[in-house]
């Protein structure tokens, strides 16, 4: 065995050693060749790939959020704007003990329990790597105090942010809407519209109203700053900057003066008012009372504020102008009369005798006026608001004919206003009833159903907006425009104004003499009829129609002494246009549980017209005419 003999004999020892050295050197060179090959692979063959990765390491794109567009009314009064303020923000994922951190922060900056509550709510809705505000609108002193202690709070930062502000507060809040923090649903919507890139870094979005409808117009185009960052993500320097394009500004058709007067005219009553410029469809005032302060929503509404708004029996969050559906009551009569003329069922001079009731089969439909109105022609039927005339008319016309005619005025269909979510309302018809009800015995249309349709009761249910649009269309001689709130959009860069062209929806084929007859009767209402007291001494001629809608369902309402009586009262309505010969404004007013239309709705219309046509500012709620009655 080779291992047993001495291994090293001096003579060949040296050669053997040198051979081993040579082998080693060969292995060394081989190993270095492998390294060199690896370097060639990394630095030549894959150089582009690694260069890109190094650049990606180094360069980070920081989005720059554009300034949101400003909203002004038709006279340039600012309704929504931005201002810059400092916020104290926490990135939860970078903070160990959140509560302890907030406790410590509260020694430097005033943090109220409500701020903590709101923060917790935001925390639940957000991802932990987002920077969430614990306090907004820091004072300069608070900013300085925090800055001096910044090192103690990793993951907490003071940021200069732009805030949305609604300087008029609750005025027109149902039209303007509000913005709020982007939530999951908003994110899905942004993604669907392929706007995700444009919302990098943005944390607010329009939630409702114009802020929501015109979101992409108001938002603008995100900018980007290329920054060099180190391994810790800290910005080392700025490499290039693509400025954001600010959002475009909206100029509305609304007149804030008119809007404020109309809102004040309601006092603390619930209701809605929509005033439209008949020749364009531009909305001059869109009132829904009670209202709310949209400023509360911007940084996440506080829980108690939300509960107060959400649980109030007055439902301040509900936009009554678009989502409240009410029977039109007698305000329906001018349209019925026009239908009668157009279909040839009545002429203006044709009269009926009203004994105070209308017998239909075994059922007696009563007129409001005991003993009846006597001999009634079309003019008198509108001026005095005679029910019997319209019971008979409806019965003579038949439901199909009524529905066909009313459909042209937009009753029971969405108006297409530039706010999302308006209700459809109900234009009753046999088909509607079939769709609405499930059981066959409920689905059948009875001839008796038609009779009360004639006076705007029964299944009739429309939004105040629909009523206003129908009135404006009537005032505009049958030419219907899409109601809209935005008059023009101003490009933030060029200052160029894009006018929103009034869109004529349709021209209803109406005979001019028929329109004239109805308008004359509506002027009569104001002169000598149910609207006369509210408009006594007016320096302009207007046409109008009072209405009273019965509140028939009280089921499910809790009994509260005092309140129940108020809630049992009928809704008061008034539709009107002025001046009578060349209408510049048409409106519909609804006062929930306001009693007779003449009593509470017409006086509101008076204040609105007085301001709009004469510039008179009353500054207070409209007086209630307690002695007013429907048949006055």
């Amino acid at each position, binding site marked *: 065995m080779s291992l047993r003999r001495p291994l090293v004999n001096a003579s060949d020892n040296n050669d053997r050693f040198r051979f081993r*050295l040579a082998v080693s050197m060969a292995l060394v060179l081989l*190993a270095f060749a492998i390294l060199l090959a*690896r370097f060639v692979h990394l*630095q030549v063959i894959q150089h582009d790939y690694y260069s890109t990765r*190094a650049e990606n*390491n180094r360069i980070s794109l920081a989005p720059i959020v554009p300034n949101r567009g400003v909203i002004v009314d038709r006279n340039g009064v600012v309704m929504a704007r931005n201002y810059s303020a400092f916020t104290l923000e926490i990135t939860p994922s970078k903070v160990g003990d959140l509560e302890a951190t907030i406790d410590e922060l509260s020694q430097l900056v005033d943090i109220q329990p409500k701020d903590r509550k709101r923060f917790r709510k935001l925390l639940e809705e957000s991802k932990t790597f987002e920077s969430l505000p614990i306090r907004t609108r820091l004072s300069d002193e608070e900013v300085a105090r925090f800055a001096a202690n910044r090192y103690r709070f990793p993951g907490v930062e003071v940021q200069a942010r732009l805030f949305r502000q609604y300087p008029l507060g609750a005025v027109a809040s149902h039209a303007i809407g509000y913005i709020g923090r982007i939530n999951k649903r908003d994110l899905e919507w942004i993604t669907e519209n392929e706007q995700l890139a444009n919302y990098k870094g943005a944390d607010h979005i329009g939630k409702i109203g114009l802020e929501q409808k015109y979101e992409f117009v108001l938002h603008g185009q995100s900018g980007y700053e290329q920054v060099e960052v180190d*391994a810790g993500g800290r910005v080392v320097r700025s490499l290039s900057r693509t400025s954001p394009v600010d959002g475009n500004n909206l100029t509305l058709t609304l007149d804030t003066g008119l809007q404020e007067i109309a809102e004040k005219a309601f006092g603390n009553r619930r209701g809605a008012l929509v005033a439209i410029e008949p020749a364009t469809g531009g909305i001059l005032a869109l009132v829904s009372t009670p209202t709310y302060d949209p400023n509360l929503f911007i940084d996440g509404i506080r829980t108690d504020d939300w509960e107060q708004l959400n649980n109030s029996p007055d439902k301040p969050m509900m936009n009554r102008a678009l989502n409240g559906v009410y029977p039109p009551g007698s305000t329906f009569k001018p349209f019925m009369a026009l239908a009668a003329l157009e279909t040839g069922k009545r002429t203006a001079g044709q009269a009926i005798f009203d004994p105070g009731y209308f017998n239909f089969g075994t059922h007696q439909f009563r007129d409001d006026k005991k003993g009846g109105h006597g001999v009634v022609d079309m003019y008198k039927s509108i001026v005095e608001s005679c029910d019997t005339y319209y019971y008979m008319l409806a019965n003579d016309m038949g439901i199909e004919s009524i529905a066909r005619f009313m459909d042209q005025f937009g009753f029971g269909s969405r108006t297409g206003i530039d706010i999302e979510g308006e209700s459809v309302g109900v234009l009753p018809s046999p088909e509607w009833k079939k769709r609405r009800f499930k059981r066959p015995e409920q689905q059948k249309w009875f001839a008796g159903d038609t009779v009360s349709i004639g006076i705007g009761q029964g299944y009739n249910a429309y939004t105040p907006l629909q009523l206003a649009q129908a009135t404006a269309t009537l005032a505009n001689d049958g030419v219907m425009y899409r109601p809209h709130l935005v008059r023009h959009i101003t490009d933030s860069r060029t200052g160029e104004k894009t006018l929103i062209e009034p869109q004529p929806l349709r021209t209803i084929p109406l005979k001019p003499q028929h329109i004239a007859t109805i308008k004359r009767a509506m002027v009569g209402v104001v002169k000598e009829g149910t609207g006369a007291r509210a408009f006594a001494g007016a320096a302009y001629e207007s046409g109008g129609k009072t209405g009273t809608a019965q509140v028939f369902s009280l089921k499910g309402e809790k009994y509260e002494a005092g309140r129940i009586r108020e809630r049992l009262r009928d809704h008061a309505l008034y539709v009107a246009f002025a001046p009578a010969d060349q209408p510049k404004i048409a409106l519909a007013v609804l006062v929930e549980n306001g009693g007779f239309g003449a009593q509470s709705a017409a006086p509101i219309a008076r204040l609105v017209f007085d301001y709009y046509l004469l510039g008179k500012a009353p500054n207070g709620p409209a007086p209630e005419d307690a002695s007013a009655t429907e048949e006055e």
Partner: protein
Amino acid sequence: MHDPIRLPAVFFRLRARLLAHIDVPLLLIVLALMLCGLATVYSATYDGNNRVFAQFLNMGLGLAVMWAVAQIPPQKLMRLAVPLYVIGVVLLLLVFLVGIRVNGAQRWLSLGFVRIQPSEILKLALPLMLAWYFHKHEATLKARHFVAAALLMLVPLALIAKQPDLGTAILVGAAGFYVIFFSGLPWKAIGVMTLIAGAAAPLLWSHLHDYQRKRILTLIDPTADPLGAGYHIIQSTIAIGSGGAVGKGWLNGTQTHLEFIPERHTDFIFAVFSEEWGLLGNAVLLFLYTLLIARGMMIAGNAPTLFSRAMAGSITLSFFTYIFVNMGMVSGILPVVGVPLPFLSYGGTAIVILCLALGVLMSIQTHRMLVKK
């Protein structure tokens, strides 16, 4: 005052004294490498805690140590073998018993005023011991001597591996193995050992610590854990790859200066060098290292005794091992093991140990005539 004629004589005498027992080619190669090192340490640290002056002092100290060791003839060095080895092993035992635990590893020993890492001593003490052992039994070398040598090697290795410090264990083990190899370990035995090692690999795997396994798995797929274990490798390969053919230029490495490279002035300094000097720089550096190794091989080839041959060969191949393991690790073809790059990485201990080894090489080279006499 001065005598202008006598000055050159003083100068020459001084130069002769300074260069006594110094191998000038080796010195020049090392000085070139140290220059590269200083430039790279400067780049890696100038925008923070600049270490270049400290490294300059380390190198000065290292060169002094080298000079001093070079003056000692190999026979005297041989006498240090046994005591050094015994002291080293005793200290390792103390580490095992009363060592200081840092980051989960028990590698340090506190001497009250200073902390030492005894495993560093073994990097030289083990090859010295083995070379002395084989030298002593040169005439009657038998299989049992190799077995005994293996035992001499395994005791400290086991203690180091236990700490755990796989990197140092591999380096110390390699240095010991090279001595045995150059002392004439039969090729057959090498073949058998390779086979056994291959068969034992799975067993070894099961004895590895989790973090050690992770490092090996990370090598196979660094992207599996890009922010954890894979981060070092990913960032260093990006640095090397983005350096390209000629590099981004000195002080211009973005991976370096934006702090993407971890340990950039110590174990990962090659990534800094490679990013800034590119493939060209890498080739020059590899060439310098090749020269270093070639010079070491020449010294070994000319060495007159088994002790000096085995020592010179072992030191030279150890240099190679450091270089290959470090560059392989930084460029992502070997697992992450804490091994510095000779003469480039910052660190006093590493420099001094390397210079000690250089001193031994120079002593071997410059004392061979005396031995022959």
